[in-house]
């Protein structure tokens, strides 16, 4: 029973990170109909940014969240204006956008190899190994903090999307861009801001991930794939759907570790088994086809 509780807690805490990670990908796809393959690149960049600020300047990774997120937001806006903006959209633009953003990812990854080598890095904070007892289970303080930040991020996003003119306009653009133009919404500006927001979320997730796992320039690849699983499971842009999907993915990865002799290298594959099952059984995702509702 105690073991079960530990597994539940571990799943919930991991789900927070997964939801943050996936949300940016879903947001960009929901609004721009573009699969941002550079999502993985920005996750990696966020991890290195946090590591660099911590190891060079002693800045705590949690204090680095806001500046790193802000810079990534501006980088995302810039990438939209410079590159993505020129791409054809929707079904016709699928191949071009995949290739372009994959190319950007490769460039970023190789820049990271040049700058930081391929060695694994970790962010060592003083509290990295500290734990507290929660309902009888030992829980890492850092994992709790990651979860707290993830929860806060998703909460802020939810308010942004449902309560502000910008958020409502963003959801409207996802559903019918021309009606938005007619009402005076500058659709291209919403696209740029959305791309910036999705990019910022990727970097924040990367930074949070860096406090938990060792990483190298290839960091972000598995995370991109996990983000796909969450987006497909949870549907586009619904904060609640993303959270539940992230929880399912986390539980699918965490629970089998309790089985004696279960090979740990298989845990990562379980998410994709889940993905295939969902695609076969419920191609619209677990919660249907709602778009940024």
């Amino acid at each position, binding site marked *: 029973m105690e073991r079960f509780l530990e597994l539940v807690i571990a799943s919930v805490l991991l789900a927070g990170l997964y939801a943050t990670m996936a949300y940016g990908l879903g947001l960009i796809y929901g609004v721009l109909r573009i699969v941002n393959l550079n999502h993985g690149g920005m996750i990696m960049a966020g991890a290195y940014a946090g590591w660099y600020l911590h190891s060079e300047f002693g800045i705590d990774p949690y204090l680095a969240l806001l500046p790193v997120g802000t810079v990534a937001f501006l980088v995302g806006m810039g990438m939209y204006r410079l590159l993505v903006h020129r791409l054809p959209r929707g079904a016709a633009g699928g191949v071009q956008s995949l290739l372009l953003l994959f190319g950007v990812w490769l460039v970023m990854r190789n820049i990271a190899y040049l700058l930081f080598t391929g060695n694994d890095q970790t962010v060592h904070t003083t509290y990295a190994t500290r734990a507290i007892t929660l309902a009888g289970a030992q829980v890492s303080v850092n994992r709790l903090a990651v979860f707290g930040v993830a929860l806060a991020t998703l909460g802020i996003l939810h308010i942004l999307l449902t309560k502000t*003119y910008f958020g*409502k*306009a963003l*959801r*409207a653009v996802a*559903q*019918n861009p*021309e*009606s*938005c*133009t*007619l*009402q*005076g*919404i*500058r*659709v291209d500006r919403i696209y740029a801001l959305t791309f910036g927001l999705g990019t910022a979320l990727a970097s924040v997730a990367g930074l949070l991930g860096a406090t938990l796992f060792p990483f190298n320039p290839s960091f972000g690849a598995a995370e991109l794939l996990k983000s796909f699983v969450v987006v497909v499971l949870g549907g586009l842009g619904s904060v609640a759907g993303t959270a539940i999907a992230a929880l399912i993915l986390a539980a699918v990865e965490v629970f089998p570790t309790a089985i004696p002799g279960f090979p740990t290298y298989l845990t990562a594959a379980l998410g994709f088994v889940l993905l295939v099952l969902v695609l076969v059984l419920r191609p619209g995702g677990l919660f249907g086809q*709602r*778009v*940024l*509702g």
Partner: protein
Amino acid sequence: MSTEPLLEVRGIDAGYGDVQVLSGLSLKVEEKEIVTLLGSNGAGKTTTLRCIMGVVRPRTGEVIFRGQPLSAQPASERAGQGMALVPEGRELWPQLTVRENLELGAYHQRARARAAQNLERVHQLFPRLLERKSQMAGSLSGGEQQMAAIGRALMSEPSLLLLDEPSLGLAPIVVEQMFEVIRSLHQGGMTILLVEQNLQAALEIATRGYVIETGQVKLTGTAEQLRNDPKIRAAYLGL
């Protein structure tokens, strides 16, 4: 000049790809008029409205609003200048609530300041929208969607309202209500450009009309003249 029309369309050519839809179409709408565009399917009525709103770019010619040529401005500026289109097929945001659809009608700066007031006015005009405020727009009936689409346009405080087939696909009793609403908006001082397949009803409330055929104005006159024109009676009214 005080005689300047509110809207002038001057010799526009427009089309999609290789298909030319409008060739040298011109029209004028004076302040406080209801002008109706008549013509069969494919004549270019909807394209005319889309050119006026800037979502289709004319290849030649000019759209002039309050004396200002608009061709250099992005379409998203139109709402702020006082033009609003209720598009054919309503084109609401189906997965936003009725309330959110209306709120986004007041997106541009000028209207946003008075959004609360205007929302109340829209609710007075269409009490049904208040009842349905938390419902997804996609779940409304056709008539309610039309109300929401008109309400959204009114939220932007337009001085020129363009209506594209507001009665399309609606039950006769709802159509009557729509025309009643259009009439009351006009009495409240709104200038309206109306595209309508229901010719008889359109000519009843309009002050003037244009008959469009293959992208050109074939005939123009007061509503009265058009109603009594033998060609129109034969071709469109079946009389």
